[in-house]
């Protein structure tokens, strides 16, 4: 699930390691927050549409 297999080239490894850990952590946090937001929006849209579609069976 996670991404751990990569090129063993020292240049590639150094480039990735240059990314500050703090930035990595904040991006992860923001991405998780975004999951919550888009998930909530999708749930809202689906719920509203299910309510609308229920008229078909009433």
């Amino acid at each position, binding site marked *: *699930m*996670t*991404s*751990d*297999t*990569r*090129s063993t*080239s020292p*240049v*590639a*490894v150094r*480039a*990735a*390691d240059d*990314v500050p*850990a703090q*930035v*990595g952590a904040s*991006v*992860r946090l*923001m*991405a*998780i927050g*975004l*999951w919550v*937001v*888009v*998930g909530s*929006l*999708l749930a*809202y*849209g*689906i719920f*509203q*549409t*299910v309510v*609308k*579609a*229920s*008229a*078909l*069976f*009433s």
Partner: protein
Amino acid sequence: MSVLDKSRTVAPHGYNRWLVPPAALAVHLSIGQVYAFSIFKNPLLDRFGTSHTSIAVIFSIAIVMLGLSAAFGGKWMERNGPRKAMALATVCWVSGFLVAALGVSLGQLWIVYLGYGVIGGIGLGIGYISPVSTLIKWFPDRPGLATGLAIMGFGGGALVASPLAARLLKAYGPIPSESIVPTMLTLAAVYAVLMTCGAVTIRIPAPGWKPQGWTPPARGANKTQSHANVRVGNAVRTPQFYLLWIVLFTNVTAGIGILEQASPMIQDFFPGVTELTAAGFVGLLSLANMGGRFVWSTTSDKLGRKRTYIMYLGVGAALYAGLAAVGASAVGLFVALTFVIVSFYGGGFATIPAYLKDLFGQLEVGAIHGRLLTAWSAAGIAGPLIVNGIADARGAQGVTGAALYLPSLVTMCAVLVVGFVANMLVRPVAERFHEPTAVPVPTDEPVLAAVPVGVGTTLKES
């Protein structure tokens, strides 16, 4: 170095790939609003006092611009990375709303055409293709799931925007035509935040990255799948590109055949069905459209892309024939048949980037996808023309009820058979179009440039 640069979006070591889909969804949920444009139709009619066609042109311009900008912007997007593309899409989509709001405020319809249609349409096209190739690179083992996740958001965008815009129109005043401007400004603000969050969080995998423990499957399990890469310039010279263009065109045209006429169709088939019930039917089809994008595209990872399109087009043609023959016999049967047809329509959109990846590799799959989306624009014009043209002609002859749609349904069945044949003709791309093993690397990317052989090899493998 700009924060928008491709090199600034490379994921840190150990980055979880499941943190990437929300960035794609944020963009697609925003631009998917275009499918809910009809919510503005009546307020705009009241505001401008013009014809239905004049207002419908706004949507048509946006869809045409989507195809054109995706076709011409795909190569730029591949070169500059997803963040810059998402930022451009955000600027265009949000500016489109702002300019359109200005047009409504000034009472100038041409400014609305320019804003929502032209500028917003460019945002649509760039936004649509920008996260797709990134997700394919993160999920080389499950490209159907990846593209299904992103493109499901586009279908979901309408489900969110439709009730949201309706609430805003009501909240800003008793007369919807006077509430359009604040509603558009509010939506612009919401989409600006959401899409910016997507652009900030998007990450591309480091060169040479592949999922842990995954090795590219041997050819044979999926005969059309290749591990070679084909550049967009070569891809458009292959017959496979045009066969897939026909496949997408026919699948979209057939889906529009139902979606375009869903509400009047069920009422004509079954006179007892009320307008409210018909609205429920339209809602159900929206769910089929969105669900099909994720479910069928994910299924294609197991079934294989060619077989999946055999299902969309072959089973779809049979369902259309069934609808024409026995659809009028029971409401439940009619609803079930149309539900599956529309789910295939959504699935066709979501599976096509994975099909392109199988045939042309992932190197420039976003740019190739962009070129292929011109089929969507063409189908967006052809589909409604066929359905409305036939229905109008039948109506003029005094035909009513289910018989009104019979020729349309038979025509759509034939259209799907054409797509089915095109899909059956798809073969692996000839080796002369493949890129050499060591892929040439742009000089502005030091990491890639430092390890050209390794990068080329891994790209080919994944």
